[in-house]
C-alpha cells in the first residue's frame, strides 16, 4: 500500500542517477550518479522486501558491499586517468571512436 511512495522515491533517485551518468562530464560525478542508481535499486529491494521476509534487505546489503568495491576500483581508474591526462573529463575519453 505505501510501497508506492518508496517506488516513487526510488524512481526519482534512479532518474537523477541516470541523468548524472548521461550528462555529467566529471568522472567522479558519474561515479556518484552510479551510486545513486544503485541506491535507488536498494530502496526498491528493501521496499519489496517488507512483504517477503528478509531477503530483500540481505540483497541490499550485498549491493552496498559490491558498490563499495566498485567505487574503490572506479576511483582508482579515475586516479590513473588523471595521472595520465591531467583531466577527468569523460568526454575526452573517446579513443574507441570508430
Amino acid at each position, binding site marked *: 500500500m505505501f510501497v508506492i511512495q518508496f517506488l516513487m522515491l526510488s524512481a526519482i533517485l534512479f532518474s537523477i542517477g541516470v541523468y548524472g*551518468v*548521461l550528462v555529467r562530464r566529471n568522472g567522479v560525478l558519474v561515479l556518484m550518479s552510479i551510486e545513486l542508481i544503485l541506491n535507488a535499486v536498494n530502496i526498491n529491494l528493501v521496499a519489496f522486501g517488507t512483504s517477503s521476509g528478509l531477503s530483500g534487505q540481505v540483497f541490499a546489503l550485498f549491493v552496498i558491499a559490491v558498490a563499495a568495491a566498485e567505487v574503490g576500483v572506479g576511483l582508482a581508474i579515475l586516479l590513473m586517468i588523471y595521472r595520465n591526462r591531467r583531466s577527468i573529463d569523460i*568526454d575526452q*575519453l*573517446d579513443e*574507441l*571512436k*570508430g
Partner: protein
Amino acid sequence: MWFLTHAWLIPALPALSFVLILVFGKKFLGPTRAHYIGIPFVLAAFVLSLLTAGAWISRSNDHVETEAAAMSGVDAKCSEIAAAADKGPEVFEASLAGETKASPAATTPTEATPAVEAAASEEHPSQPVVRCASWWQNDDSVFTIGTIIDGQSVLMLVVVTLISLLVHVFSTDYVNGDRRYTHYFAFLSLFTASMLFFVLSQSILQMIVGWELVGVCSFALIGHWWEEKPNSDAALKAFITNRVGDIGLLIGVIILFFESGQNWSVLDINTKANTGQIGHTYLLVASLCLLTAVMSKSGQFILHTWLPDAMAGPTPVSALIHAATMVVAGIYMVARLYPVFFHGLSISGSSVNAMAVIGSVTALFGALLAFVQKDIKKVLAYSTVSQLGFMVTALGVGAWTAALFHLFTHAFFKACLFLGAGSLSHACHHSFNMVDDMGGMRKVMPKTFKTFVIGTGALAGIFPLAGFWSKDEILAGTGGLNAANGTYTFALIMLLLAAFCTAAYMTRVIWYAFYGEYRGHGEPHESGPRITVPLVILAVLGAVAGFANLPKSIGGWKLPEAISLRFEHLVEPVGVFFPGKDAGFTHAGFNVGLALLSLGVAGAGVYLTYLFYWKRALKPLEGLAERNKLAGAGKNILVNKYYLDTLYTTIIVGAIKGPIAKATYWFNQNVIDGAVNGVGRNAVKAGQFVYETIDQQVVDGAVNGTASIASSTGGGLRKIQTGRIQQYAALFFAAAALLAGVFVVVIG
C-alpha cells in the same frame, strides 16, 4: 644327330668372332691382324657345317614310311603339325585336313590326303630337324627362335661358310694395310653370321631379323671406304632400295602369320598353304608382297639398280654378297616358303606368272646391260643380276631344285670371277676399268687367267662345267619344249637369249682383260698365294659342282642311281610341307635337244665375240652405234641403264623434292597451320571473353560487391561508434526503457 640338333652353333661362332674382333681386335692384335680371330672361327663354322651335312646325308638315307614318323626330328613346341604327329597318325591326318581349332581358314580340306599317300608310296618323306627356344612371350603367343635343318639349309650352310672362309683368306692380302682392317673383318664375321642365322630360320619372324641383319651388314661393307662420296651413296642406295622391298616382306609375313592361325613356324605355314588351309587369295597377295622383297634383295628388274652400285665396296665383299650372302637371300626365302608361291601364283599348269616374267625379263635385261660396262666388276654385277633372274625364273616355273642347284653352282663360279677381278685390280693399281687400264694380263697372271676362264666357261654354260648342268636344268624346267609344270615358252625364249648374251659379254671381258696390249701403267704382277689359292679352289668347284646333279638319263643312256640326281635327292624336300606330285609339281627330264640348243647358243655367243674382237671379222658391226641411229639409241638406253636411275632420282625423288614438297609445304602452312592457328586464335578469344566477362565481372564483382557492402555497412555503423561512454549509456538506457515499455504493454 648331335650336329643336326646343335646347328645353332654355326651362326653363333661367327657372331662370337664379331664381338671378339670388335672388343679385342685392335687392342690386343694390332691394326693388321684381325683375321687371327676371324679365320679360325669361320673355319670352325665351315667344319661344323660339313659335319652337319654329313649327318644330314646319313639321316636322309634312313627311310621312314609315314609323314607322321618323318616329324620325329621336329620339336613339338615349335610346330603344330609336329605336335599333331606326336599324338598319333589320326590327329596328324586331321590337322592336315584343317580340322583343328587353330585353323579357321580351312577351305578345301579334301586336297590333303592324296598328297600324303602318294608321297608315302613312292618317295620317302624327308625328315627335317627343328629345334627352338622361346624367344619371348606375350600373353599366350610364344615367339620362338630356332634352327631348321633340312637339305636346303644344309646346302646353304656349306656354301656360305665355304665362300666366307675363302673370302676371309683372300681379304688378308687384298685389304692388307687398310685403315679399317679390324672393322672390315668384324663385319665380314657379322655378315656371315647373319646369313647363317637367316638360312637356319625356323620361324618367319626370325627370317625377317636375319634378312635385315644381312641388309645392315651389306650397308656397312659397301660403304667401307665411306670417305669417298660415291661409296657412301652406293651404301645408302643399297639400303634404301632394300627398304622398299622390305615393306613387301613385312606385309607378306603378316598375312601369312594371320592366315595360318597366328603361326610363325615355316613348316606349319608351308603345310597349311599346301593343304589348302590358307585361302588362295591370301596366298596370292602374300606371294606378290614377298616377291617385291625378292625383287629388291635379289636384284630383280626394276629394283636391281642398287646391285651394280654396290660394287663400290671392296671386291671380296662383292664376291661374298653375290655368291653366298645377301642377294641369294631372296631366292632362299622363296625356296623356303615355296608352297606359298606355288599355290599362290598357280605355277603348276600355267604358262605365265609374275615371278617367271620378272625373272626372265631380269635375266635378259641384266645381261644386255653388261655389254656397255667398262668396269669389270660392273659386268660381273649385271651378270649376277641376270643369273639371279635365271634362278627366279626357275622358281617361277616350278623348277625348285634347278633354282637351288643354280644357286649352288653360281656361288662357286661367281665368287671365282669376282675374286679373279679383285686379283686383276690388285695387279693393275686398284683400277677396275678393263677397257682403259687392263689388257694382255694372261701372260703376267697365268693363274688368275686360267681360273677366270674356267669361271667364265661355267657362267656361260659350256659343257661340262657347272653352269651347263644347272642352267640346262632351268631351261628344261620352263617346259617350253617338254611340258613339265607348265609351258613357259616366253621364259624359255628369254633365257636362251640371256644365255647367248652371257656367253658374249663374258668373252668380251676376257678379251679386254687378258688379251691385246697392256693399257695401264706400271708393271702388273701375279698375286700372292693368299689370293690365288682361293681362286684355284673356287675354279675347281666351279668346274665340277655340276656333277652333283647329273640327270637320270642322257638321251636314253641311263646313269647309275648312285651318281644321278644326288643333289635333288638330298636337297629337295618330300612331305606335307612341300608341293607334291598331286599338286602338279613335277620334274623336267634331261632333254638332249634343249641341251644342244643352249650349248649352241652359248657357243655362238662366244664365237661371234671371238670374231668381233680377236679376228675383227665383223667389220660392219664395229662402230655401228655411231653410224646407225637406231643402234645408237639402243646403246644410249643401255648406257643409261634403261633410265631407271633417272626415273628414281629425277622423277620420283625430284618430284617429291620439287612440286610435291612444295605442295606439302603449302598444305602444311595454309591448311594445317591455319587450322592450328585458328584454334589458337579462338582459344585466345575465348580466354579473353572469360577473363573480361566472367572473371572480371562476375567473380570479381561478387567479391568486390561483398567487400563494398561490408565496407559501407561498417562505414554506417562506424558513426554510432563514437567512443563516448555516455552516449553508449544513453542508448543502453533508452533500449532498456523501450524494453521495459514493451514488457509493460505485453505483460500488463
